[in-house]
């Protein structure tokens, strides 16, 4: 820890000097790692496989997530305590911070980069802020814990209610010219939706259900999107196992023709045809999957697991749908992030206080970076992806 701090102090000194000389700082290969217990983030550099700086004072970051401004200079960090922090990764400091709710869970940035939305458990709803100033632009109370907030093309945000099983589409396009948010409500999405995703083209919104088998999709290109049931019987006849951690659908896997999704309460991932939304296969896994993430080229799917099997990762080949590699990075693997071309994967190993970097072709461990209880890893390349 100490050498890291010294290096950090030096880096900070050098940065300050460099800034005075108006040195250009490119951010395209940078990223942030959440240090969940400490309320800080670490600035990381993909090319150097290094930590550059620690930025502190972001509040409770358990279950925190990040979106980036289109210019990849600013990170919006959504903390569990309702904090929304705008981090300037060029100057390596907090640019602005508001505490907007009591208990929040994720956020999104509009396609034009002008609006940042935050999803709240308590009080339930979504708040939308000016990305520049963090001033409140719209408050959308829902009377329910709100999950699965994503951006969609046309200055829209889509989100779902855990308690009532309703999805709302908030069209913010009129707000620019002083108008109101236009809300479309879609009831009957299913029981206890726990998370959702939108496909990279912004067309299909899929929410995972905890309270019943299967998932529910919406075609956002439809004039009046209707809930489409997906795999309504996938667990039927099998004994369900206790679920100790809800899976995540962010970073879900799209391997070209198919989606891969974690099953709830079962040790398997489900393969779904991207067009028909019919099941095409299942792959048995080591434990209950938390993340099932496709390498950007879609060739591999990397899966991590819920407590108590959360020390292991399995890699599935998306052609054969078989497990081609299994290894134990260490205690409590919480998150994985591919480099944008997929040559490397960065893995946070919370209870070992390390981020580990692997080659995705040879599976070789390339480097370890010290981090305090690391969770989410977010590269700036997310700035250019719908739904991330």
């Amino acid at each position, binding site marked *: 820890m100490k050498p890291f701090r010294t290096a950090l102090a030096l880096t900070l000194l050098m940065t300050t000097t460099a800034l005075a000389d108006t040195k250009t700082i490119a951010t395209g290969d940078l990223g942030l790692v959440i240090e969940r217990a400490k309320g800080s983030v670490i600035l990381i550099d993909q090319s150097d496989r290094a930590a550059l700086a620690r930025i502190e004072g972001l509040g*409770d970051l*358990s*279950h925190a997530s990040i979106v980036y401004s289109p210019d990849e200079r600013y990170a919006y960090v959504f903390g569990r305590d309702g904090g929304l922090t705008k981090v300037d990764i060029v100057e390596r400091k907090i640019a602005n911070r508001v505490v907007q709710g009591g208990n929040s869970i994720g956020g999104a940035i509009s396609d034009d980069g002008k609006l940042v939305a935050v999803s709240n*458990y308590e009080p339930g709803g979504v708040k939308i802020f000016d990305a520049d100033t963090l001033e409140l632009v719209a408050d959308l109370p829902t009377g329910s814990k709100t999950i699965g907030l994503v951006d969609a093309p046309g200055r829209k945000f889509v989100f779902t209610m855990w308690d009532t099983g309703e999805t709302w589409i908030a069209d913010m396009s009129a707000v620019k010219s002083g108008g109101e948010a236009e809300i479309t409500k879609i009831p009957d999405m299913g029981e206890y939706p726990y998370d959702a995703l939108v496909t990279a083209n912004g067309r299909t919104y899929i929410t995972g259900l905890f309270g019943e088998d299967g998932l529910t999709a919406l075609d956002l290109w439809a004039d009046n999107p209707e809930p489409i049931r997906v795999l309504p019987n996938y667990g039927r006849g099998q004994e369900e196992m*206790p*679920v*100790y951690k*809800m899976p995540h659908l962010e970073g879900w896997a799209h391997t070209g023709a198919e989606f891969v999704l974690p099953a709830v309460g079962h040790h398997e991932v489900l393969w779904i045809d991207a067009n028909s939304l019919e099941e095409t296969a299942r792959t048995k896994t080591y434990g209950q999957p938390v993340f099932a993430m496709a390498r950007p080229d879609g060739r591999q799917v990397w899966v991590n697991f819920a*407590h108590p099997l959360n020390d292991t990762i399995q890699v599935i080949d998306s052609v054969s749908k078989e497990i081609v590699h299994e290894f134990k990075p260490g205690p409590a693997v919480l998150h994985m992030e591919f480099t944008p071309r997929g040559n490397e994967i960065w893995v946070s190993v919370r209870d070992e206080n390390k981020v580990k970097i692997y080659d995705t072709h040879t599976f070789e461990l390339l480097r370890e970076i010290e981090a305090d209880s690391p969770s989410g890893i977010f590269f700036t390349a997310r700035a250019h992806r719908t739904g991330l």
Partner: protein
Amino acid sequence: MASTLPLLSLLPALAIAGWAAFSPSTALADGMPVGEGLDTEELKRLVHQDCGSCHGLTLKGGLGPDIRPETLTHYEPDILETVILDGIPDTPMPPWRPLITQEEAQWIALYLLNGDAQ
């Protein structure tokens, strides 16, 4: 809290005995202090990290409800212990019986009710 952690880990039995004295009505089972022989640091980690998946790292709630001492104060420890071991049907609260012992669940119930109670 931070300053007492080393003491707790070095002398778990002593620390638990002191803690039992804090809440004598609930901490005794069969005449034995609850927590004897348990890895209480590991159990605390489980509460904050794994219960925390749903209830929040600080236990103030997430998808699952707030389970801080001030919120749980009107619950009997036995009820909490049963909820921990068997879950609550038709809700996301899972049964932890496959992963922990009854004694551990009892310790967690008291920990949730009393906090660190230093």
